[in-house]
């Protein structure tokens, strides 16, 4: 491993609870890296160990070739944007941003220059003399980012930085953070429980569960080829079909027997052999819904069903379709004016179709309570 920031076999226990369990990661210079997971998965603990607020019980944290595990937070070239910003209430915007430079005893001229540059970056020159309690949530967030960045850290850690903002502002700040990352070009490590934030910003995502990394990859990999049911259901919606591999079908595909459905054909990149029990994952937007039976085609699965629920969501519609004992979740984008077509209604018989390559097989052990979906 030769990453810029390397987490090597890091473990952290609180009493007999293991918060972070033997995690190994390598993060590149300039990367926007997300730690994604539900609360209590250990992502924040991992971040706090990188920042220096917690000491790992085992393992190493190597930044740019130097083991920083035993350095106190004030000696690490790492800065943090805290969840509730933790701006100093008795200092104004300028002095909050200048704090790290003052600690470092930089000359006043340099402090002025660099703080001004930061105020420019976050577009808050006018507000420099405001106190934190006179700022809006978005402004506080920007000050927190500037206060960390002005120290030119090797890595910027962001701990759920948008959690305190409302949806609209969150989307706006996402773009802003992305822009800032592009402009300063340093490594960002972003902790969040929000899959949308992680997907839209990151170069790579580590999905965490119970102190371990479930999967590490680009947003596309994680969404399109989740390696476990947990990852599949944590990121986006998913339909799970439990069945058994019947036979290989061509070099790359196999035939699945799924109770209550005609045989299903599926891409078999994991080379799962006949006889194994598997769970087939199909994303709702990969399913086509239609009134007429689609034409037969190789590698396309077609099943009949009945519409149980229609939820119109503007840009797309979500259907619940009953197939025998199962419920499929289907999403259909509206490519053109929705009312031009005759909309599919409740209790209408429909056909569902998906391409074999749009299904992902998971070994059954990897699938949590997927049955009810």
């Amino acid at each position, binding site marked *: 491993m030769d990453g810029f920031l390397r987490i090597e076999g890091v473990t952290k226990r609180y009493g007999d609870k293991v918060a972070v369990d033997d995690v190994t990661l390598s993060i590149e210079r300039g990367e926007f890296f997300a730690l994604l997971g539900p609360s209590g998965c250990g992502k924040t603990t991992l971040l706090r160990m990188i920042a220096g607020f917690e000491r790992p019980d085992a393992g190493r944290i190597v930044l740019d070739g130097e083991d920083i595990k035993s350095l106190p937070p004030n000696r690490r070239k*790492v800065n943090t944007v805290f969840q*509730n910003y933790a701006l*100093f209430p008795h200092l104004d915007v300028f002095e909050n941003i200048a*704090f790290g430079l003052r600690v470092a005893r930089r000359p006043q001229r340099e402090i002025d220059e660099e703080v001004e540059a930061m105020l420019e970056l976050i577009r808050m020159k006018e507000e420099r003399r405001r106190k934190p309690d006179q700022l809006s949530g978005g402004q506080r967030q920007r000050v927190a980012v500037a206060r960390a960045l002005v120290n030119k850290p090797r890595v910027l850690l962001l701990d759920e930085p948008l959690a305190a903002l409302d949806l609209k502002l969150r989307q706006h700040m996402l773009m802003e953070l992305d822009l800032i990352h592009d402009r300063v070009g340093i490594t960002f490590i972003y902790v969040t429980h929000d899959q949308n934030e992680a997907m839209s910003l990151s170069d790579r995502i580590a999905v965490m569960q119970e102190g371990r990394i479930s999967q590490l990859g680009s947003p596309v990999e994680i969404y399109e080829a989740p390696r476990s049911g947990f990852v599949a259901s944590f990121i986006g919606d998913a339909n799970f079909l439990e069945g058994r591999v019947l036979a290989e079908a061509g070099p790359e595909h196999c035939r699945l027997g799924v109770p209550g459905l005609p045989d299903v054909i599926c891409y078999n990149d994991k080379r799962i052999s006949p006889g194994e029990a598997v769970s087939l994952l199909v994303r709702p937007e990969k399913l086509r819904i239609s009134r007429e039976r689609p034409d037969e085609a190789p590698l396309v699965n077609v099943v009949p069903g009945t519409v149980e629920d229609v939820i119109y969501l503007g840009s797309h519609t979500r259907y619940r379709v009953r197939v025998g004992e199962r419920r499929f979740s289907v999403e259909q984008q509206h490519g053109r004016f929705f009312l031009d077509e005759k909309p599919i209604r409740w209790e209408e018989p429909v056909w569902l179709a998906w391409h074999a390559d749009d299904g992902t097989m998971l070994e059954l052990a990897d699938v949590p309570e997927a049955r009810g979906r």
Partner: protein
Amino acid sequence: MSGRTRASGAELAATAPSFLWLALFFVVPTLLVFAVAFRPSDPYGGIGAGWTLESLRALGNPSYPAIIWRTVWVSVVATVLCVALAIPTAYAMARAPVRWRRTILLLVVIPFWTSFLVRVFAWKTLLHPDGLVKSLLVALGLVQPETTLLYNVGAVLLVTVHTDLPFAILPIYAAAEKFDLRLLEAARDLGAGSWYAFRRVFLPGISRGIQNGVLMVLIPVLGSYVVPDIVGGPSGEMLGGTIAQRVFVDRNLPNAAGLAALLALAVLLPLIGALWLQTRRGRPLRMEELP
């Protein structure tokens, strides 16, 4: 501030009872004390007829400057000591786990369960030439057997700090408990050492508590009378004791009133100073924040 200058009728009606109370039992008696200072004394310990500047002249007593100076410096030093001890205590309490906090708070307050007088007399016993503290210090070789621990300014300071320390701890702890400790983490993250973070983030964060703690200690100590009287001896006499002497020994109420008025002015000055400090920050001081 401008919105506060004119109170509505309803507001006036709501606050009238408390103002009336303050006026009747605080402002009027204080003004009476000021007035008595300008009356002559009568030989039976009462107040004579007419007006006189006799008490004002009595303030020129050559022994007073030393006593006033001692009162001021003992009060200031005791306050500084109390606050200096209270700040780290409050810091440690605020950082302690919640279930520990209650215990420590209890320990701070427990002395109040014993009568103030009993505590002061207990010190007298401890510091007595045959007392526990004295014997212990002599045994440890820290103190010569002929040193007196009692009846000097040092004893007054020691006992005052002991009795008044909780009054400094409580308001400072109240502020420290509300202080967001994550700010210290933020300071550390930005490169500050613990001491820098404590000084530049924690102390400003609890400044209001410190101001209140100063007032809570300084004002009672300025007027303190029991402690100097019991452990101070003649070399530890403070203004409060002198006032008591004028009343009980000299039976000269106007002279006592003159001294009391002087003391009242001395107490008002730090209060006005604190008010000015706090309003300067752009926020008026609220009633409940006054000691």
